[in-house]
């Protein structure tokens, strides 16, 4: 439209980009929020989901019985990758009991990054299991925290028991370039997985 009027009226045609997402997963405190913040073009936004824990009088219409509610923070960032495509990055809730949110997050995701902390590698087993089972392509980013032994990526691959084609990179979630490399490796992996003939 030639109009220079910056006021957008409801229903007025505007270029609406395609919204796609990548999931940043991993155990508690492994650097998910940090990674989202490192690459997001906006200050990461945070939203909440409110949960009522079942079995505490939720059927009680008088509402006198105790009801446990809990909130889960969900943080996300955004990267405008082209005029037509906006990529959202979602950090998963760290605590395992919020697994059910992962289903929705994983639905339709291009892929996932599993952040691993070698000091407690087992905290990412859940995430690896989850994405394998759902058939969501993923890459593993090994965060190097102070005091952690440096492992070769192939040692991590063995310990995690993931397929040879799954990208595993040493990374620093605080570093934008490092996060970029992880995401590029993931998307390259996704593209190869879709068209094996073009890989090589």
């Amino acid at each position, binding site marked *: 439209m030639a109009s220079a009027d910056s006021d*957008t*009226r*409801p*229903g007025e045609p*505007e*270029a*609406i*980009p*395609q*919204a*796609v*997402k990548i999931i940043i997963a991993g155990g508690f405190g492994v650097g998910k929020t940090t990674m989202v913040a490192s690459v997001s073009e906006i200050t990461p*936004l*945070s*939203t*909440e*989901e*409110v*949960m*009522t*824990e*079942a*079995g505490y009088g939720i059927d009680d219409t008088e509402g006198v019985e105790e009801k446990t509610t*809990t*909130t889960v923070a*969900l943080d996300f960032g955004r*990267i405008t*990758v*082209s005029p*037509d*495509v906006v*990529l*959202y990055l*979602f950090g998963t809730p760290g605590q*395992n*009991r919020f*697994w*059910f949110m992962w*289903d*929705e997050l994983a*639905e*339709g995701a*291009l892929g996932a990054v599993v952040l691993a902390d070698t000091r407690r590698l*087992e905290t990412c*087993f*859940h995430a*690896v*299991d*989850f994405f394998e089972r759902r058939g969501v392509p993923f890459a593993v980013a090994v965060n190097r925290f102070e005091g952690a032994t440096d492992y070769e990526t192939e*040692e991590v691959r*063995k310990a995690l*028991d993931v397929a040879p084609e799954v990208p595993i990179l040493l990374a620093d979630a605080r570093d*934008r370039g490092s996060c*970029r490399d992880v*995401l*590029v490796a993931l*998307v390259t992996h*996704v*593209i190869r997985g*879709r068209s094996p003939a073009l890989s090589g």
Partner: protein
Amino acid sequence: MSHEGRRAAARHERGIADGAPVDQAGPDRTEERFLRPFAVAAGDPGGPASGGDLAPLDLLTLVVAARTPGRNEWLRPECGTILRHALRARTVVELSAEVNLPVGQVRAMVARMIADGSLQRCGPSRPLARKDILHAVLVGLRSL
């Protein structure tokens, strides 16, 4: 124990420790413990016969205001807030962060507002094939 067995063994231990069958350990098992109070209302306000807009709203569903905010908004100020934020197309999750309400609640409100004609869903202006999307993402990420 070999490295290879570690993840499977951990899975097994979790199953035993939680007193649940091994093959049900992990993500799915805990789902029933929590209810999302707004999820049900968000589903389908008009019932299956209401026609149109029946696909569930997900976090990245795009909606845009279908009318000017202002009329009757004093009854439901949050709806006015949502309308003002949706003057340009917005994803459900962005709306939730912008109006500072839980995403489940916003999802329910958005579903109602679609049903009453205040909001409408919108798709991308230029829908792309998945391979073109992946290509755009790769190019965009490389230039970060």
